[in-house]
């Protein structure tokens, strides 16, 4: 059994079935991409795993623990971090504070009001390291909401990985970026997720085939194929359901 296992996961919104029995097993250290047409339920699946939505049926196991009924903060404390499709940062705080807040729980501070976070010490050094990694060190004191879009995406990633999560989930990390920005972002993702397990949703096929060890194709709430990139490329059903559509529209 891998680090994350989904068994027959279902999600209904009212009468509508959005996720229709998804089973998936992600290995430790794997770089896994989930692709599929719009409305297939990719983001919903992310929300289910990360605790934002509750499942209608099925189980989700992360590191041998059932997490399907947990809140986002409980899931996060187990070492599962995620980013968002729409930039989701702490806009009025500066860049450094954004990252430092993301480090607080994993550094053991919990809800402390008896520690002071000065400018020295381990957590501050660690926050600077993360800023260095994501290339925002010279923007440390800049209000996060005023960063350029690509920089906000980098910060988004920084917040996700700061806490040292073993499993990182990225929801369309390069959406809305220019070509050169996207290729920088891919390098960055590769760097910061080295040695970690990665699950990502992405529309850009070049990036998906470039980054992923394994790809799952989600169509109308079901996984129709889950395999190595070269096999996915060759899979007739996938081509029909998804890649064909992309090729046609491209």
């Amino acid at each position: 059994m891998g680090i994350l296992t989904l068994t027959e996961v279902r999600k209904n919104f009212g009468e509508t079935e959005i996720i229709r029995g998804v089973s998936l097993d992600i290995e430790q250290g794997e770089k896994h991409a989930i692709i599929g047409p719009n409305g297939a339920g990719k983001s919903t699946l992310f929300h289910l795993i990360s605790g934002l939505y509750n499942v209608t049926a099925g189980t989700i196991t992360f590191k041998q623990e059932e997490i399907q009924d947990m809140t986002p903060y409980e899931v996060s404390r187990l070492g599962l971090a995620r980013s968002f499709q729409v930039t989701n940062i702490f806009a009025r705080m500066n860049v450094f504070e954004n990252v430092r807040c993301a480090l607080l729980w994993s550094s053991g501070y919990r809800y402390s009001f008896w520690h002071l976070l000065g400018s020295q010490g381990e957590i501050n050094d660690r926050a600077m390291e993360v800023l260095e990694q994501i290339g925002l060190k010279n923007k440390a004191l800049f209000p996060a909401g005023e960063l350029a879009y690509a920089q906000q995406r980098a910060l988004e990633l920084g917040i996700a990985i700061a806490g040292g999560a073993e499993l990182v989930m990225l929801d369309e990390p390069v959406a809305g970026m220019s070509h050169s920005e996207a290729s920088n972002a891919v390098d960055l993702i590769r760097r910061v997720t080295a040695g970690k397990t990665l699950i990502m949703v992405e529309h850009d096929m070049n990036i998906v085939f470039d980054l992923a060890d394994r790809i799952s194709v989600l169509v109308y709430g079901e996984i129709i194929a889950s395999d190595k990139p070269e096999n996915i490329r060759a899979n007739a059903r996938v081509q029909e359901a998804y890649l064909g559509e992309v090729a046609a529209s491209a």
Partner: protein
Amino acid sequence: MATVRKFSLWGGYLLVLLALPQFFDSILSISIFNQMAIAIVFALSYNMLLGQGGMLSFGHAVYFGLGGFLAVHTLILIEFETVYFSIIFIPLVGGFFGLLAAIFIGSFSTRKAGTVFAMISLGIGELIAASSLIFVSFFGGEAGVSGDRTFGPLFFGVDFAQDLQIYYLAAIWVFIATVFMYLFTRTPVGRMANAVRDNPERAEFIGYSARRVRFISFCASGLFAGIAGGLFALNYEFITEENLNAATSGRVLLMAYIGGLGYFIGPIIGAVLLTLMNSLLSNYSELWLLYLGVLFVLTVMFLPRGFAGFIMMHQVAWVSGTLRRLALPYLITGFPAFIFILASVAMIELSHTDGEAFQYLGLSLERGSSIDWLLIGGVAIAAFLGTKKSLPQLRDAWEDANTLPADEDS
């Protein structure tokens, strides 16, 4: 270096607090200082909710008032020798009760921020204000409850009979409360309060329950509001329903907002400013609440970050040494603007005055005289046009002062 600056800043604050009565020693000024001391702690505690935690409360006076009521009851207990301790600890008693009330009410009201929180705070405020007229034995009905602060053991021979002695006691408490409220912003949970304010959803994905973070800020805020209530009890030796009703809740909101929510020092500025308006302006005009309302509306419209934000706007010019270039342009715009305000006030007061004549800035204005009306109206219009015409030069000067010599792009 930074530490030295920080300590001298706090040292300066303490020094100002302690030295004020040396320069203004009339009974009136001591009474105003005492009101300021209470208002500063109260407004800072309010900012823990709204400015730092993103919780808009319309019922913050509840914690102030409940703390104050328990403080007065404790004064009575000391007077009748049921308990025996120095009254210097009374603010702590108020704080403790404010904290208890906040723990109880916060346990359900902090579930959500935004409108839900605001509505619950309004409801609780009305509820407590209404029950204060029902539970007469504790709240004393409309008359309130009163005590006497001169009982209990003397504190190094001081009996706190005079307002000046209370001022020094209050100043020490203001200093302590300010330091602790500032330190709170530097703690992990204080930082997460900002994060939850900005983006509660994301805060949950970095391991924190937004509700729990809000609850802790709420309790801390209740504690300090209670301390302010305790100071109130010590200063006035009585407290009534008025001190926990919606009007008091509204006033603290105005103080924090006008001062500037985004800055730690903002509510201090707001508390000082509004206390001054309250005590000085009300001597001159029955309409001071109208002026306060206008000030609030203007602040919301033109200085959304309050007076502290206005001061901080000048940081760039200050650092680059171009602040001096703004002095004359400010004067050029400020002078007609000031005249416009004076003339407007004259018109408002003239239409309100009971008598026929109205003394204003050494002039005797008559309500029935159309010449007087035309004169003031003309001055007002001219001053308004003058202000408007001078705005472009101010804008240019502002641009000029804030243009950095070289851009520091990455």
